């Protein structure tokens, strides 16, 4: 998927989303025929609370140029508080990634409800276009390619 026939860089975006809000928001974008770039691969999890930080690292390891983590708005969690727990972890985890020099422009967080098909479209389009401008995440893929040290 990295090279399109036209030679334009097609970023690889992985989205970890919760089953009840953002996944349904993406469904709604579908039923509303809201077009967005075909670069995103959605991984459905029950709740943002289920999304552990290792999955973000794993995403970059498999060559993601950007990652989105998205779930229900605060207070709307299907499981009442999974997103609150997740938010607290992200606050700290972002800092760690920043200290390690990860490109914070490639790690995105959003609250997208089941009713926000439009927001899903906008957020995804925005992430893909921004990542396209930045180019491939060469810094981390270089790290992942290094075989032994």
């Amino acid at each position, binding site marked *: 998927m990295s090279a399109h026939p036209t030679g334009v860089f097609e970023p690889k975006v992985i989205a970890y989303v919760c089953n009840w809000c953002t996944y349904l928001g993406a*469904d709604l974008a579908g039923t509303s025929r809201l077009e967005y770039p075909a670069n995103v691969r959605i*991984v459905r*999890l*029950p709740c943002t609370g289920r999304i552990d930080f290792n*999955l973000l690292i794993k995403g970059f390891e498999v060559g993601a140029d950007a990652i989105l983590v998205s779930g229900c708005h605060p207070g709307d969690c299907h*499981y009442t508080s999974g997103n609150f727990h997740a938010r607290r*972890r992200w606050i700290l985890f972002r800092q760690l990634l920043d200290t390690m020099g990860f490109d914070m422009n490639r790690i995105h967080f959003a609250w997208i409800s089941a009713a926000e098909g439009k927001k899903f479209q906008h957020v995804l389009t925005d992430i893909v276009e921004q990542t396209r401008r930045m180019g491939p995440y060469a810094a981390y893929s270089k790290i992942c390619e290094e075989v032994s040290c």
Partner: protein
Amino acid sequence: MSRIGVFVCWCGENIARTVDVVQVAEASLQFPGVKHAAHYKYMCSEPGQSLIRDKILADRLDGIVVASCSPHMHLKTFRGAAQAAGLNPYLVEIANIREHCSWVHQDKAKATAKAIDLVRMAVAKVRRNNALQAIKVPVTKRALIIGAGVAGIQAALDIADAGYEVVLVEREPSVGGKMAGLSETFPTMDCSQCILTPRMVDVGQHPRIKLYTCAEVESVDGYVGNFKATIRQKARFVDIKKCTGCGECWNACPQKKIASEFDYGMGNRRAIYIPFPQAVPARPAIDKQACLKLKKGVCGICAKKCAAGAINYADQDQLLEEPIGAIIVATGYQLYQISAQQPTAELSGYGEYGYGQYKDVIDALQFERLVSASGPTGGVIQRPSDGKEPKHVVFISCVGSRDNAKGISYCSKICCMYTAKHTMLYKHKVHDGQAHVFYMDIRSGGKNYDEFVRRAIEQDHARYYRGRVSKITEENGKLIVRGADTLAGTPVTIEADLVVLASAMRPATGSDDLARKLRIGYDQNGFLSESHPKLRPVETNSAGILICGACHAPKDIPESVAQASAAAGKVLVMFSHKEMQRDPEIAKINESTCSACFACVRTCPYQAAEKADVRDRAGNLVKRTARINQGLCMGCGTCVAVCPSKSADLEGFSDQQIYAMVESLL
């Protein structure tokens, strides 16, 4: 090893138009573990499903991926098809190539490439799926109903009449709720008490309804089918088993000027009182804030008057435990407070309407008591300030409702109708009087509802002004109401004798606390959340807990009753089985690697992760561990993400499955 079948759906043209389904099927044959791939026009149709069933049997498939629409649409369908062919239903995965692909992309090459990726991920996942069995839990066939207004009463009677025990908990001294205080009801104008009180009596006398009044739910432990409710029976100071309800006590009580809650302060009661004559149980309670004996140790007249010896000044709160299988929450509503002072920072009041400042500015429930035959004036319309009959009454709708500036954006739904009813009730009692109504829109959807509003306007000549009231002032015993008629484009000033404000409906006080105790959701306005707005309207996201009535959203009596019966029906469905089946896609703990840090126990939104001891046969403690209570776990997986050693995992979304999906994208 695996023998996966991939079934690509065209969805007619919906998928096939932008995704090359043939190419997707061919490509999936190359994925590790795929034994068979097919495509068909409508996989969800009977021929499509039979194609799947046949292939499962013919090729002995041990997992299938259906590339089709959203799993929210048809995962259940295809799980059923798999099961029919003898394949465990949890060995089915969906690749969503419609909502997430064909419907949102135009470029066929890109959409097809994406669809292939989505199938690749689903195949990687399904290879690691476990065959799961539905979890069976026993059911305690007793229902707890919280709140004994019309909704709670209806649900209680339905369940009790079906032959099951009901524990009905009401925090007021009597059942009946708000409806017991209403005068007549729209659109039929039948008397509220006449239709409700027989049902209240039924509740009081029903052999299978255990009624707690002056009581609240203190806590709920356990899980669906097996709850344990702790009920706080508040001190009533009257032994209702001994009491005969003769009335000697309250007639003798010297504290005569206590504002009656039932009359919303429009009338008075004693310190020992029944809230209204038809109360169930017809037994008094002592208001400990008002009772001279309890406050100052003097008086004691009621005890002297009581021949039955039912008065007990030493009464104390008691905590009682009840085993319960299902819970219905029917805690109802309260009215938005109109005055400037508000209970929460998000809300603001209408200082400009002078509520609380001018005696003749009242709210809708107060007006109900004013026109009720059982009310403080015996149904004669007298204004509170001087008892005069009001000749001009202004009704203002949407006070609080649909007003973002005041913090309530929703429509309270019933105000248009009861305001029309109020104008009619008024006109029927004060023939030379004039009702004026300020409104934003008239919302009268419902059987015979719009006809009812037309009647108020056309037959009873209520004057309707489409516009808001900006200010109310008092001059010479008149209330000067300044507003606008936006249809006529003119300002309107009315010299009114009485103003009635249709203030917004809000969830009853404490319903958010209760929701937290029950671990059910509520929205930003505090109304309790249903599991699905269309398909699961009375269920909550906590299994075995249902909601009905105005605690869910503003609604009128017929809707509350219908919803109560619906909730009761759901309970009866549950009680019709010996055992309950629960979704097995829940968390599990690897106890041999768990280090008992209990991060999961702290995190679990349902208290399903518990601390446990592992013991050897001799009973010696081997180690401590976390353990998942299968009845409580709802499968969110929050425990998995906080477990540092990854000893917690989630069936259906296990680390193996998810990492395999991500790694398939390399």
